[in-house]
């Protein structure tokens, strides 16, 4: 985890499908509309995620990035194509609890304390009381909310709720984290703090992450690879490798880095096609 700048190129994906965290092959998702009209949310999308790799999906609204995440989570099934998670069909991976998930809304149960919310998945899967307590305490420590273990969600700020949601997604030590704009509802300062924390947490847990966002700097700051999608129909426009160093070694200084700005403008150009001058800075969050 302490490797210097150079990122090892992941080996070609063919022939080692079983060792991939996520393997999406030729996936399309068509939503049937009324009167025979249908919307193609995703059109023959292929994507692989290595174990421990941080991949961001970015694109304008309607490009199917959330749909893709829901398909990987088996909250929805593809119209055509195949999705494998750690070599298993997505459904089996969900049943086996191979991933943890966090949404834009923290989605905490209001009648459970911070600790109770984090324990929920453990409780559902039959972990013992003592084991649950210990694991929750550990995770609360990890997200820096030790003083708030007994608080209820309505006593926490939005950023704290989101931290609890992330702790909950980590409860069963998954090797894959699926995150759907988890910081989308937070203010800019909280957001950057959360990004720093997520980078640290990912380094500590070495989980692979699929991260949906509409913020370019966020995607660049967090990711090993940024996948740029385009809308109508949802397709992958390009995949950008971000060579900004190991996830764990990223810190506040990186945001001032020349290379960081370079990659940000690269992604922006990809997003806007030929990068019209007037559109610069629109998605600068």
């Amino acid at each position, binding site marked *: 985890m302490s490797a210097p700048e150079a990122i090892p190129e992941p080996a070609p994906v063919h022939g080692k499908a079983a060792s991939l965290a996520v393997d999406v092959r030729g996936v399309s998702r068509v939503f049937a509309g009324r009167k025979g009209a249908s919307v193609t949310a995703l059109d023959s999308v292929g994507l692989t995620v290595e174990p421990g790799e941080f991949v961001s999906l970015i694109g304008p609204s309607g490009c199917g990035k959330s749909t893709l995440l829901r398909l990987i989570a088996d909250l929805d099934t593809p119209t055509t194509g195949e999705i494998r998670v750690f070599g298993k069909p997505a459904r089996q991976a969900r049943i086996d609890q191979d991933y943890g998930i966090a949404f834009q809304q923290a989605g905490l149960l209001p009648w459970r304390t911070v600790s109770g919310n984090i324990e929920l998945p453990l409780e559902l899967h039959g972990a013992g009381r003592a084991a649950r307590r210990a694991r929750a305490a550990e995770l609360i420590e990890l997200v820096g909310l030790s003083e708030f273990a007994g608080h209820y969600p309505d006593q926490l700020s939005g950023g704290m709720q989101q931290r609890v949601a992330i702790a909950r997604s980590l409860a069963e030590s998954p090797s894959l984290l699926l995150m759907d704009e988890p910081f989308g509802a937070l203010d800019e300062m909280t957001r950057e*703090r959360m990004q720093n924390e997520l980078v640290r947490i990912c380094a500590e847990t070495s989980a692979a992450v699929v991260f949906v966002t509409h913020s370019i700097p966020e995607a660049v700051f967090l990711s090993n690879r940024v996948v740029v999608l385009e809308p109508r129909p949802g397709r992958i426009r390009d995949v950008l490798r971000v060579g900004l160093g190991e996830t764990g070694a990223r810190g506040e200084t990186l945001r001032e880095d020349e290379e960081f700005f370079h990659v940000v403008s690269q992604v922006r150009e990809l997003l806007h096609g030929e990068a019209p001058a007037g559109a610069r800075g629109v998605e600068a969050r």
Partner: protein
Amino acid sequence: MTTPTTPRPRRGPLPARRFVVGALGLVLLAGLWELYKLLGPADGVVVAGVTVLPRTSDLAMPHLWVMAGRALEPVTGAGNAAPLWQAVVDASLFTLGISAVGWLVGVTVGLALALLMQRFRLAEAAVLPWIILSQTVPLIALAPLVRRWGTQIQFGAFSWESWMSVALIASYLAFFPVSVGALRGLGSPDANHVDLMHCYSAGWWKTLWRLRLPASVGYLLPALRLAAASAVIGSVVAEVSIGLRGGIGRMIVEYAGAAGGDPGKPWAPIFGSVLVGLVAAGFVGLIGLGLRRFRRGEVAA
């Protein structure tokens, strides 16, 4: 730096203050009664042959202290008669017991129907219209039917008794708000929460127990309170139409006949029935107190 928001302020005034305000309302009502009796015309206010405000004679509107005083006197002139208040309390307890049975049965049936409708979309389409329609059947029409069917039920040592008919009718009124309220409550969790339970591959029962039932408490409590009030009203009315003795409903009708010579007497069972309603509502309030945790504000992210 993210900071915790302060806990939400209590809704409404403190309990002690609420009690005082409630008592003040009662005093105001009593004051209005006596004031109208003092100032209103003895023959009432009649507009175009129609009496719009009641007569203020001692027969039509006895003084409050007459009602109170009468309650302390014996029921009848007979030497061994119990005081009126005691008879009223006995009758109230009798009716309260029947209402409680009706409420329990109604809540059970209402919850079961709501669960069925939540589980199967088809059941909702098939059952919900009938549930709503069921409440349009007048109670008076129902009572003799229930009674007649009841008398035909008999097996072993069990035989149907009249109080069971009354309880059944009470439950018929009580189940309705529960089934509708619980159905809304069970369907109230966000798509977000339902997705999360799906991700945890939690089945229907686990989702019900950890998510849907706790989420429905906020909808269920008003429904339970409404059911309690309905059960009391149902019992009182059904006692009259079935002709069951011993309850407050029958007593109201009996004593109303005495109004001519003894104007304070009919008011005692009326207050008794109000008391039954208050006790029933208070009981549901206690349930709400126990479930306080599930009524926390929704998460504002």
